[in-house]
């Protein structure tokens, strides 16, 4: 097998799945330093995303450890021989399971409070989803509201709301959309989401 180490800027341009394949090839070739650089690119790229998501769902003192576990499991499971599909989707699946497992485990044990808290532990209140059922339901609500939309409206919501991009992008990428249309589609989605969340909550 011929393995060609790549520069960091080349690795940055690879997709997650290409990076995983590169790491596997590097390992098979015994080229650990190139594998390390690719791991750095992959882990750094997802770290803040995973940490931010966990901060909304878990107590602060377990967030970084859990983030490390989630990313490590997502990466190492791709080496075990089982196909896990697209890395990003797999990472999201493992993250959701970690949140569910945390609350399930907590229900089984008396307490998970640390013996001491880190000095820099954030003073903000702990997450609003008090149990795994609440988290799963919120995910299902978003999905069900998205599923109600017709194709072009769903594309607009995905661009503007889920990907955080501009209305102009939606106009450019979705046939027949004007800024006014985009505003109305997003507004209707938000109203519907709110209704669904309130209904789910009540």
């Amino acid at each position: 097998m011929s393995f060609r180490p790549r520069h960091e800027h080349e690795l940055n341009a690879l997709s997650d799945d290409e990076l995983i394949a590169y790491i596997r090839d590097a390992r098979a070739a015994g080229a650990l330093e190139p594998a390390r650089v690719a791991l750095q690119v992959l882990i750094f790229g997802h770290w803040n995303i995973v940490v931010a998501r966990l901060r909304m769902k878990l107590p602060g003192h377990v967030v970084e450890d859990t983030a490390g576990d989630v990313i490590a499991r997502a990466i190492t499971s791709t080496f075990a021989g089982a196909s896990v599909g697209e890395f990003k989707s797999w990472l999201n699946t493992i993250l959701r399971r970690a949140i569910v497992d945390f609350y399930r485990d907590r229900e089984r044990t008396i307490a998970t409070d640390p013996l001491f808290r880190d000095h820099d532990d954030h003073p903000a209140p702990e997450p609003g989803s008090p149990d795994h059922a609440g988290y799963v339901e919120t995910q299902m609500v978003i999905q069900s509201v998205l599923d109600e939309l017709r194709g072009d409206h769903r594309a607009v919501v995905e661009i503007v709301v889920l990907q955080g991009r501009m209305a102009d992008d939606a106009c450019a990428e979705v046939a027949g959309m004007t800024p006014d249309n985009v505003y109305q589609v997003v507004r209707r989605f938000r109203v519907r989401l709110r209704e669904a969340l309130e209904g789910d909550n009540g």
Partner: protein
Amino acid sequence: MDDAMSDVEGLRQRFIAEFEAGRAPDPREYLTQVDGADRRELEALLDAYLEQAPRRSFDAAAFAASPARDLADDLTQALGGQAGTWPVLLPRLRQTARLRRADLVQRLSAALGVTGREEKVGRYYHEMEQGLLEPRGVSDRVLDALGDLLGTSRERLREAAAALGPTAPSPGDTLFARTAMPDPDARAAMGAPPAPSGEEPPEEVDEVDELFRGAG
């Protein structure tokens, strides 16, 4: 949009702008600015955004200061070793259990009935954390005792040892540890370095060797 939706929308946009600028905004700071249904809606919207957010471009300076660095080092260690994800799992479990390595070694030695042989147990445990010890040689007694101390199970430890599959690196490649020298805690647990070869006869195989190498 009405006022409540505008508040939520403003917070959502500010969070995304900060996140995409490469900072690490804490979503809880945004969530605490709204209550009730607004908060739940904002949380759902931020989570949906983050679920799709693309990977951040690598930044060497930011990486050097990030906790992500330790994970990358441990995973590299695991890829180059022969013990699956033990180099990732064992230090984290130990940290979660709030156990210094020397304390863990002391308790492990006691649990295995080899009190007084902490130095050798420490060397073997160090090899486990570094991924250098062949997992099949490690006995169930060791893994059961470790599992009790670290809040896990023998099965999970065996599973982690097999997690990276059979591929092995070529022996000529260099494996860079996280630091050039082990930290003082590690050095204390490892005990004195072995005598240079040729000066003393090799140690006889004893019960500790059997526990850590004899199971395969």
